[in-house]
């Protein structure tokens, strides 16, 4: 009985490890993207470039 239990727990641990990609576990929160980060996706980045892009649109797309 005992070896069976040990084998089962070993399999459970192994499959958990496999599922977790052998470590480096990221916990998920709904609505929060946790892939490799992109600092250009942030509010600040969008804010920072908004004016330049607006001017650019006015300059590039209006008829001269």
């Amino acid at each position: 009985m005992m070896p069976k239990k040990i084998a089962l727990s070993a399999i459970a641990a192994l499959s958990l490890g496999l599922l977790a990609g052998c470590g480096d576990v990221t916990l998920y929160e709904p609505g929060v993207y946790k892939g490799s980060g992109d600092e250009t996706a942030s509010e600040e980045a969008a804010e920072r470039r908004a004016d330049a892009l607006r001017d650019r649109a006015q300059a590039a797309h209006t008829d001269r």
Partner: protein
Amino acid sequence: MARMKFLCDAERCIECQACVTACKNEHEVPWGVNRRRVIVMNDGRPGEKSISVACMHCTDAPCAAVCPVDCFYTTADGIVLHDKDLCIGCGYCFYACPFGAPQYPQQTAFGVRGKMDKCTFCAGGPEPVHSQEELTKYGTNRVEEGKLPLCAEMCATKALIAGDGNVIADIYRKRVMTRGGRPQTWGWQAAYGDDI
């Protein structure tokens, strides 16, 4: 907050394919992958119209909804980007997209497609800005330089316009008011919803 949008003015588009060429050249897009394409309706018949179509950067993007690995994200100014390191090339986004925007480098047996590639609104990807990785995986990042997508910026007839949705809607409205006729904001309802 600006909300980035594409708009193609069908009354101005002359099917010159410059947007397609510009995109291919700017981002070194490989053969068979077409981030942008021009579609001609009623080709060769009276009333022929053409539209330049690429990823419309939807508000509620279907590609992001069906992705099994959740590799899509939307920037604060509404650009839909994806992470090629997460993509497994399953093709679901291609079937979900109304505009046929997602592309893959391969189409071979056993469902091998390679990493999905699509229009980034010239905003690169999750790699460090202007890094070699970003360049090879996603193409150049013009938005971070304060520039708009090259396809739109170099459109000779200014048919394809891109940028802050309010600004380009304003430009388009002035055009329609001047020339008359009905506005045709092609694809906007599907991409950005009814409340635009």
